[in-house]
């Protein structure tokens, strides 16, 4: 299977293509430096993203911004968002508080990114 991605290592944005066989990279081309090669290897085999979202706060009109404590598998983004949407927190909340531990059965926590008192 041929896959194409854009490198985000720098503004050049090289188009990198790779041949994948059962999730393993057989050949890879198009990058102009090692940053791109490394990025592509990770991005093509186990892409991860930080997720930021909003959580409902009991008794408050304003939502609480939250983020994943570390990047999660790209395929889990929408599961993660759904779980966050189904959750509420109570005041007060401080930056860094874990408001939802182990999202989607992973070891990644959802933490608050704002002080809400």
């Amino acid at each position, binding site marked *: 299977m041929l896959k194409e*991605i*854009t*490198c*985000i290592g*720098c*503004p*050049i*944005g090289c188009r990198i293509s790779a041949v994948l066989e059962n999730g393993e990279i057989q050949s890879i081309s198009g990058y102009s430096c090692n940053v791109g090669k490394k990025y592509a290897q990770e991005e093509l085999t186990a892409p991860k*993203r*930080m997720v*930021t*979202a*909003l959580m*409902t706060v009991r008794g408050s*009109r*304003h*939502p609480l*911004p939250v*983020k994943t404590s570390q990047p999660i598998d*790209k395929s889990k983004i929408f599961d993660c*968002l759904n779980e966050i949407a189904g959750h509420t927190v109570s005041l007060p909340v401080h*930056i860094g508080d874990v408001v939802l531990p182990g999202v989607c059965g992973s070891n990644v926590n959802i933490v608050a*990114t*704002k*002080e809400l008192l």
Partner: protein
Amino acid sequence: MRKVDLLIIGGGPAGLAAAVSAYEQGCRDILILEREDTLGGILRQCIHNGFGLHTFQQELTGPEYAQKYIDRVIDYQIPYQCNTMVIEITKEKQVTAVNRSNGLQHFQAKAIILAMGCRERPRGALAIPGWRCSGIYTAGTAQKFVNLEGIMPGARVVILGSGDIGLIMARRMTFMGAKVLACVELLPFSSGLKRNIVQCLDDYDIPLLLNHTVVDIAGRERLEGVTVAQVDPETKRPIAGTEQYYACDTLLLSVGLIPENELSRMAGIDLCADTGGPSVDENLQTSVSGVFSCGNVLHVHDLVDFVSEEAAKAGAKAWRYITDTLDKNLKSMPIISGFGVSGAVPQKIHVGNADQPVTLMFRPKNVYKNAKVCVTAGEKEIYRHSSRILTPGEMVSLKLTPEALRQISDAENLTVKVEAS
């Protein structure tokens, strides 16, 4: 009339960093005036991550980045007034502000730092035909509704312009359950970061239509759809026969930012046509003595880290002005934007007895590959740096050393230019 040493207008990242830095230099009589009900500026609504990589070597969200500075303002007990809008400043550094509890307030400051930020270019500036129906917002306004109020502006979205705020809103709207149909860009390249194109558009299969624009808007009360057409890359004119209709209830505009300089104009401060902000020298002092400027009101930045760095300098220099230790009456030399350079800041420097490096920033006018950035004074070149790529979406920031500046103290001007290969 209340007297204050340093008055800072705007409590966003620029105002906060300026206050912290002035305090750390020794200034104890500071007042920050902010028209919103909390400090933090635009960062309060930027809940995505990616802030602070330069300053804190970690990836923070907007509110987290702002809080780091707010905590220091509180630690140092620097006074601030929220819900307070500055409505007038004068050359004599008198400031008038209004708020609900105090009514009109008058201040006499020894120095002022302008840190009012910028606002988005509105629809009126674009001349798209159609009714003034609801459903058309700037991307930043939509960001404010969604992230601060938890209100969704619509369910089917088209984005005009591919600036970073628009790209980030494409992802946010998708996360909130909306369908983003396309991101439409007039130019042959996006002004947004590659990272945002990949992680906000590509990840969710949202097409980026380069060399395209919105040519018509359907709907009278509420937006019903937009017509998008391809444009000729040379003339920017729509090409007949390429029209495509997208049924949608929301159009987000992400077509540029304009520094907020109504107050600066009122004080008779010279503005620069290229940046839309005040003309400043290397101390970030405007044409009115004792009035300094930093952040997005000076020129639109893409990275908040650069805003904080610039603001810290404004704070320190304002304190030197207050204590009468800022160099005065030195000969100044204009900085000219040469080929490929748009809006170099500062606009002039005093080279007489340069003892610190001078930071020069500008936006490239176009995309240049394997280009060089050069600074020359007459025949003499004092700076040269090769870059594999320069794009309008990423500001160039360079430092001129005191040694380099001393070499050219007799030159008429300095020119910054791009040498494209």
